[in-house]
């Protein structure tokens, strides 16, 4: 599995090592609000130096889990162990954990330098040490020269940097980031994502970042968890979750997927064959789908793994080949998305890279088209 997926160069993958000890252990953490289950027995090991992303729709419980880690919420059940220390009953001001807040929560009456030094001042650290650390943090986030400004005089991106510097100033064992970049516009957000990863690698701090932006989670994280209604739908590297979703939910949540329904009809060491009432022909998938013959399954196919071409009614019918009519074409600049309506009425999305400037599209509105894909692109999911 791992060979199919690019890992960050030089990154160890301790989660593959059964002997490795997790740095942060979240074990069966449950939280209810007036009977509503916001977290349902969440168990998640996170390793030292990871940049772990909690990804999920709004209301899926990401912030609740983060706030349990920070100590603002006490779980109803389960335990949280950081570096061997059980955090039950430890108040937020005694946890070796710091947080970068979604709103940044910079103290408006303090300068940037006072904000960054706030945490160390609480420990009664000597003035010289605080000054040194503040300077170091300002350099780390490239904000030298801004120490005497008030937060109100900073742009959104600068505030984000100061918030990060403040959260890192005490050298926490664990840094929590709640939608840290959601207030920034797209270009700045992308630049800041890379910078955040950079800083994470340089400091070696373990990061847990909450986001509802799947691109952000995919580009930044060593591993991510897709959350769904208080549970972890899937945990893995971005590549694993994208290429090997374990359910229809994750397949559709992370990226786009065309979902076809069928029944597993045959499997040998070459292919798995899935029959579908929706289609005239069978769907082929790679061997090893490991579902018993006769069981119902979903097949998910990513739009970019499909090919589209004008079809000639005389072409012979074949497996992994759908025929339909182009209803709509969306132009994204870097690619086209074709919306193809099959004869059964089902709609399929197919994307094609925009490889050449100003050429006529090979397929146009209302064309009759064939959509094909390779067996390895069929992701077989349990129903």
């Amino acid at each position, binding site marked *: 599995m791992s060979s199919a997926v690019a890992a960050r160069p030089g990154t160890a993958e301790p989660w593959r090592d059964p002997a490795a000890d997790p740095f942060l252990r979240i074990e069966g953490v449950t939280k209810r609000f007036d009977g509503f289950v916001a977290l349902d027995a969440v168990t998640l090991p996170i390793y030292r130096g990871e940049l772990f992303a909690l990804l999920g729709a709004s209301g899926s419980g990401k912030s609740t889990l983060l706030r349990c880690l920070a100590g603002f919420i006490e779980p109803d059940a389960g335990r949280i162990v950081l570096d061997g220390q059980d955090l039950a009953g430890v108040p937020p*001001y005694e946890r070796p954990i710091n*947080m970068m807040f979604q709103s940044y*929560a*910079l*103290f408006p*009456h303090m300068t940037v330098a006072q904000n960054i030094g706030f945490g160390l001042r609480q*420990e009664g650290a000597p003035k010289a040490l605080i000054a040194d650390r503040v300077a170091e943090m300002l350099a780390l986030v490239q904000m030298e020269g801004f120490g005497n400004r008030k937060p109100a005089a900073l742009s959104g991106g600068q505030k984000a940097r100061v918030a990060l510097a*403040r959260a890192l100033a*005490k050298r926490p064992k664990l840094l929590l980031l709640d939608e840290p970049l959601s207030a920034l516009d797209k270009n700045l957000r992308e630049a800041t994502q890379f910078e955040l990863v950079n800083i994470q690698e340089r400091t070696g701090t373990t990061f847990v970042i909450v986001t509802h932006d799947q691109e952000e989670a995919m580009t930044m994280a060593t591993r991510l968890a897709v959350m769904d209604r208080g549970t972890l739908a899937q945990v893995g590297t971005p590549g694993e979750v994208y290429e090997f979703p374990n359910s229809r939910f994750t397949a559709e949540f992370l990226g786009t997927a065309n979902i076809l329904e069928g029944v597993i009809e045959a499997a040998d060491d070459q292919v798995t064959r899935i029959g579908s009432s929706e289609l005239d022909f069978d769907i082929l998938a790679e061997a090893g789908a490991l579902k018993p013959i006769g069981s119902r399954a979903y097949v998910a196919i990513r739009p970019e793994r499909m090919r589209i071409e004008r079809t000639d009614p005389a072409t012979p019918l074949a497996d992994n080949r759908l025929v339909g009519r182009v209803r709509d074409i969306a132009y994204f600049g870097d690619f086209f998305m074709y919306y193809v309506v099959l004869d059964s009425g089902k709609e399929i999305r197919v994307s094609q890279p925009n490889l050449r400037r100003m050429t006529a599209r090979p397929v146009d509105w209302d064309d009759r088209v064939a959509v094909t894909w390779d067996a390895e692109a069929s992701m077989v999911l349990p129903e």
Partner: protein
Amino acid sequence: MKGRLGRAIVLALPWSWMALFFVVPFLIVLTIAFAEPSEGLPPYTPLLRWSEEGGPVIQLNLANFRLFLEDPFYLEAGLRSLRVAAISATLCLLIGYPMALAIARAPERWRATLLMLVILPFWTSFLLRITAWIGILQDQGWLNSALMALGVIREPLRLLYTDFALYIGITYCYLPFMVLPLYATLSKLDPALLEAAEDLGARPWRAFLQVTLPLSMPGVVAGFLLVFIPVVGEFVIPELLGGPGAQLIGRVLWTEFFQNRDWPLASALAVVLLMILVAPIALFQARAAREGR
């Protein structure tokens, strides 16, 4: 065109309000302050007189203002008023801050009700409420009866017509003026700031001192001045609850005006009172303007 006219009307309203109810009365008081008392109606001499030669003559009488500086009675009344106002505002702050904080931190659905309870006393007559305190504080009043019934004291305590009663009355009446501006600032405070302080290692008490308190200073100043300014000229509460020795400037003014019928002196005292309060009022306005920006 239409917009500018609309704006002119909108601006004219508060200005004409100011002119009608502040500037004009103040000018009337100011002219009386420079007059001399006389028998008759009105009981003061006109400022503008026609001289024998037929020309107009303005006669300014500064004696009333001089009296304020020369007769220690008036100066002391002024200073005592300032002290009473400062102590009252401090008492209101000490009681009102925890109240405002508690309301601001109460669950959303309770806040309107709690604020209502703070304002509720305004729905009954001011005089009635002060009279109720007389009933509570007098020698045979509820408080003394209760204390004696509990065996804490044998003889009734002298409570009414003392500074104690005076401060109880003032603090009780002016507390809402402290609570409301404090609540306004405290409820606007982003709770994430307090969480950030705790997250960075500040215990709750230190988080309060370093974050909540400094950020609520606009409310503290506003509340302090909203109590301080009117209490300096307060007349009714000292009259009804305070001791006979507590000659506050408002009470002196009342006596001069209604008992001694010395309108010019009373007016001069009113002008001096206003001058004393110009500084805190200006401070209040400056802060309000700064907050607005």
